[in-house]
């Protein structure tokens, strides 16, 4: 039980560190380190430009998409090397935000299901950050019930014609391509009538509308499809095999989202050490201590659960649904922390003016952001189901829609 690198790991770390030292955009470091729950705010630089530039530099030097094969623009690195890279890249990793969906989900899906020619065509530009990809899965009627999707694809010659609506598509407005799951047969049970495609987001009939969220931001979009044509060659997997294909994507989603969720604990501890309640620093108040201790254990528990997962990775094991813990714990913790931080400030806690609010208004931002964390990429309830079923082996919920033709399932 130790945190030491093996000699190979140490060599990899040294190489990565040297390259980053020599090549990273050091002028952005301070802004990146301060970036919190808002979008990336870089003084005098367009964030998209900065992200693309850093990604391209990494790609050219062989540091992009470490876990991908070299042939497709990656490095063929081991999982533990990917972890080490993340540690060394540090705050510069925040420049990868816009590529996460592509590199973590769309790329692996193409690798598993596209033709060799397609892989060689689409993956390297994706790795280089030249093409940004999105996933078009969720629908308004779907939610947690992803397979309840209604977007229709109908065969017409060599094309498929798409009509319907997707939602919660991150950064769709910046994307060149997307992977899209559709219903091709509503007469069979719902998991059986789905088919997956990838498409050019500039295709005629694709319309993107940003969704304004509670915190005023618009990181997500609705995407409308009106008679959009996709060549059959851009189908991923067989007709009717879409659900199986989507599982490739979702398994990779869990790996991406599950790791390193922030809880807000460090910021809160720091705040409680500085904040004067009138009777000394808040951290001296026993009620504050009791809560801080609980949150400290949750944050520490997530950190070392992550270490154990990395150890399992480096032993060649696949991280399982145990990782669902991360978001479940982090989301609720962040909401609790934000609420209590505001409480400590009394009336002043309501102030969210960035110019004025205490602690750079980060707790107000957390309060307004945390409800989303508890929903996106699997609600708390879905995550508890995953833990109960896949880790503890409890029975699945009773499925009234399992063997029913999709078109016969009741809708709202």
């Amino acid at each position, binding site marked *: 039980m130790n945190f030491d690198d093996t000699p190979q790991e140490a060599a990899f770390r040294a190489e990565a560190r040297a390259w980053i030292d020599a090549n990273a955009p050091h002028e952005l470091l301070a802004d990146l380190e301060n970036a919190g729950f808002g979008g990336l705010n870089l003084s005098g630089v367009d964030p998209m430009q900065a992200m693309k530039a850093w990604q391209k530099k990494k790609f050219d030097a062989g540091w992009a998409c470490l876990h991908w094969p070299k042939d497709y623009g990656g490095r063929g690195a081991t999982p533990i090397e990917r972890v080490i890279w993340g540690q060394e890249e540090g705050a510069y990793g925040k420049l990868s935000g816009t590529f996460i969906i592509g590199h973590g989900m769309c790329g692996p899906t193409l690798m598993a299901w596209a033709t060799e020619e397609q892989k060689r065509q689409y993956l390297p530009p994706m790795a280089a950050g030249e093409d940004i990809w999105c996933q078009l899965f*969720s629908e*308004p*009627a*779907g*939610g*947690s*019930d992803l397979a*309840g999707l209604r977007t229709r694809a109908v065969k017409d010659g060599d094309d498929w014609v798409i009509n319907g609506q997707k*939602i*919660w598509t991150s950064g769709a407005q910046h994307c060149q391509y997307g992977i899209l799951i559709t219903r091709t047969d509503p007469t069979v049970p719902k998991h059986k009538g789905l088919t997956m495609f990838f498409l050019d987001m500039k295709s005629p009939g694709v319309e993107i509308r940003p*969704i*304004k*969220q*509670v915190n*005023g931001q618009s990181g997500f979009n609705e995407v409308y499809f009106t008679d959009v044509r996709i060549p059959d060659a851009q189908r991923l997997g067989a007709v009717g095999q879409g659900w199986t294909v989507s599982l490739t994507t979702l398994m990779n989603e869990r790996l991406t989202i599950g790791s390193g969720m922030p809880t807000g604990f460090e910021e809160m501890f720091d705040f409680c050490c500085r*904040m*004067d*309640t*009138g009777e000394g620093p808040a951290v001296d108040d026993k*009620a504050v201590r009791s809560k801080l201790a609980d949150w400290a254990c949750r944050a520490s528990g997530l950190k070392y659960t992550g270490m154990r997962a990395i150890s399992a990775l480096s032993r060649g094991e696949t991280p399982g649904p145990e990782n669902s813990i991360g978001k479940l714990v982090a989301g609720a913790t962040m*909401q609790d922390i934000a*609420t209590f931080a*505001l*409480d*400590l*400030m*009394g*009336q*002043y*806690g*309501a*102030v*969210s*003016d960035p110019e*004025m609010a*205490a602690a750079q208004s980060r707790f*107000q931002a957390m*309060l*307004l952001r945390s*409800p*989303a964390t*508890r*929903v*996106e990429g699997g*609600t*708390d*309830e879905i995550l*508890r*189901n995953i833990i109960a079923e896949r880790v503890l082996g409890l029975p699945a*919920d009773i*499925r*009234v*829609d399992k063997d*029913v033709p999709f078109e016969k*399932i*009741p*809708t*709202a």
Partner: protein
Amino acid sequence: MNFEFSDEQQQLRDTARRYLADHSPSVAVRAVLEGEQPYDTALWKGLGEMGFLGAAIPEEFGGLGLGYLELCVIAEELGRSLAPVPMSSSIYLAAELIKAAGSGPQKTAWLPKLASGEAIGCLATSEGPGRVSEKSIQARVTGDRLSGAKVPVLDGMAADFAIVAARDGDRSLSLFIVDLNGPGVARQAVGTIDPARGQASIAFDNAPAERLGAAGEGFSLLTEALDRAAVLTAFEQVGGSDKALEMARDYALQRIAFGRPIGSFQAIKHMLADMYVAATLARSNAYYGAWALSTGAAELGVAAATARVSATKAFQLCGKNNIQVHGGMGFTWAFDCHLFYRRANLLALTLGGQSEWEDKLVERLRRRNAA
């Protein structure tokens, strides 16, 4: 024994609910939330005309001269509808303080205007992060002139005058009435977690200030006023909790996933049951507060703190779980869930935070038991 509102009070509730459904729909709340106005002026005027503002103001000062129970009923309905108006500042706090501590001329000058809505008052105590205490207040009055800064001041942009807690020359704290449109006052709007209730930062520089109540008694006047306002605010919170619970319940019945309403899943059912439990305990405790407020019981201190702590907890729970039941849609600007989440978290702070009231509650219980 009858621990329920009377039939007349229930009729008043029906009237208020109907009025607010017509005049404070969520689109009106959003207009303030997204706009530049600090409150809904038309709604405010209407509430004055309906007599709601003056419900607990004596008839001799232009009110209806009803009691606190009627004001509690109105507060609950305002809470349900998230009414974007300065009711708590102008009525629960300013009018109540003037009723309790004002001189004859002060009452005559202000109460009729507060009852009609023609004037708006507010209370200015906070000067920065942390609890408001005798120590925390640095604003000072010297020779009838106030200097200092207050932030945030709820409804401070909407108000015509503020009741300001300040050091009184060499004495301890007193309260002062200050004309916010007068000389030596500079105010600006402050962004908060619930922009549907405008707040301000106010700087005073030798602003004329008129003492309200006895010199040096500012903190005790304030404490008593906060207790009364806590009961009334608890009813707003109870109203908000109920409405958030209803929204969540309705959505759970209507939204289909996996071929069945999501309200048929135990995870959702039990979340809603827990919301109902919290909301019911909060309602019962609010009634306890209303009873103490309306009868002038010695228990008001305990009852107000109980009502406050219970209602804050319930509304925060219902506000956040309502979003959770709605899933992703609950987090969109377009759905109304966030209006309740914002208000729940705002009301948890406006009279001082939950931990402050928990402290008060335990201290008062202990004093009561020792007596």
